[in-house]
């Protein structure tokens, strides 16, 4: 069963092609993540799916409704949380929630069980104006408002941008609970590490989808062997590995460098051999499984 079907959708603003021939399907009840940097076209795609923009080419359906012709039906079936904090700053937490409930023709009580877990965290601040909440609280309130009418599908455009790691974790836990209620959740994020919180992901860059699949499948398709390399002088190490004639890519990853080689049957001894010709102490080389960022960067440089 599909919740969203996108067929060859494109959208441009003047000369800028924001979304370039995107096709994919999102299944009912899954958490689907669009992952990519700013300017990848995530927001434009979300706005088309929420009927706010009309595509230049292609078509799409959400919950079986056409995004252009049946826009009214889609509007009462979806919950949408835009990228910016879009609630009324001069209304209190409770007033915002009441307002959105009324707009969707429901009440807080009717769907309270859906938002209960989130709302209990907000309740102590229910008389505070939304503009005075902290980043994490605003995000929770926005999610409550998007959920209040018990939508079949939830579109969350960069809900965790600019939010600290702890609040981000909490937010993803909430999404996990909502998934159990059978709501399809479509999320976009620039944080690659959030890929492992999604069922399936689409990697987006410059308006195009580079890959759509389960995270583990994308990782298994990484074409080369990957090594984590460390030494005492990381900055020098980075430059020296880049100068190595067989180097395919060298990127810093936290406390190590991720190195991929252009040779098929490379072993860590090959690399060690090269590094031994240089002046390094405490060299450690380990073959590792690539993570989502390795895959993304590899796809980007194609």
């Amino acid at each position, binding site marked *: 069963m599909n919740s969203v079907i996108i067929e060859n959708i494109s959208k441009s603003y003047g000369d800028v092609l924001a979304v370039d021939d995107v096709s994919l399907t999102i299944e009912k009840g899954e958490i689907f993540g669009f992952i990519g*940097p700013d300017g990848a076209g995530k927001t434009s795609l979300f706005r088309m799916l929420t009927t706010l923009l009309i595509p230049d080419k292609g078509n799409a359906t959400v919950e079986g409704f056409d995004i252009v012709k049946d826009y009214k039906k889609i509007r009462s079936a979806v919950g949408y949380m835009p990228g910016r904090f879009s609630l009324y700053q001069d209304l209190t937490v409770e007033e915002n929630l009441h307002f959105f409930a009324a707009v969707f023709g429901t009440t807080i009580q009717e769907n309270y069980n859906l938002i209960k877990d989130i709302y209990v965290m907000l309740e102590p601040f229910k008389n505070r104006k939304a503009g005075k909440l902290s980043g994490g609280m605003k995000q929770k309130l926005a999610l409550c408002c998007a959920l209040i009418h018990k939508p079949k599908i939830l579109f969350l455009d960069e809900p965790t941008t600019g939010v600290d790691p702890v609040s981000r974790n909490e937010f993803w836990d909430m999404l996990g609970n909502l998934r159990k209620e059978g709501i399809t959740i479509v999320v976009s994020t620039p944080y690659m590490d959030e890929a492992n919180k999604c069922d399936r992901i689409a990697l987006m860059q410059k308006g195009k989808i580079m890959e759509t699949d389960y995270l583990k499948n994308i990782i298994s398709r990484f074409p080369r062997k990957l090594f984590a390399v460390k030494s005492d002088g990381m900055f020098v190490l980075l430059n020296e590995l880049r100068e190595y004639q067989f180097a395919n890519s060298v990127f*810093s990853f936290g406390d190590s460098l991720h190195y991929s080689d252009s040779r098929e049957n490379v072993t860590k001894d090959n690399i060690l051999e090269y590094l031994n010709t240089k002046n390094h102490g405490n060299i450690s080389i380990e073959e590792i499984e690539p993570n989502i960022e390795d895959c993304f960067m590899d796809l980007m440089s194609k």
Partner: protein
Amino acid sequence: MTNNYIIEAENLTKKFGHFTAVDSISFSVKPGEIFGFLGANGAGKTTAMRMLCGLSIPSSGKATVAGFDVFKQTEQIKKNIGYMSQKFSLYDDLTVTENINFYGGIYGLSKSKLKEKTEYLIDLLKISDARNKLLVSLPLGWKQKLAFSVAIIHEPKIVFLDEPTGGVDPITRRQFWDMIYEASHNGVTVFVTTHYMDEAEYCNRVSMMVDGRIASLDTPDNLKKEYNADNMHEVFVKIARGK
């Protein structure tokens, strides 16, 4: 205070009415160090950074930045630091060279120096094709790299970076850090906030703020040992949740 540190803060405090945004923080940063300044939203990072940049007068405590007092010598501090953030970077409706000239100009660079710097930056960032294009037409990654270069155009002793890589693609993010490393290599002290925990690993030392206080301050390796964590993400979560 000794001259071995480029930033020194002692019991630095900032109160807004009854609310204590920064609660008696003390730390020091060595010249050329990359100092990571982490914390949850609302932990007081921005307030602390503003005080160090001379934009906000502390309520109590003392601090020097580049040898200047944050209470009395804010003008000298501003001349000796660079600042860049994700939100504020460059003017979208000016061209690349106009932006460089403008910022060079406000820091009083001479004409010949400005010209030399402009050519150097355009060459360094490989943007000679785009030199006369309006900034709005450039990709975000280029803009952020240019913004960083412009922030250190007057060769400041310290550069403050407030979430410099938000929303940037992973390759550009790393290129950005290459630039930070190079600046640090050349002796510039880098004071940086970020929400990407892998970037915390790139710092020489990391401080973690919780509720206006510095809860932890050490090298990434020591922090990982201390909190028995595999990476900085875990460290962050453990500290922010109070272990």
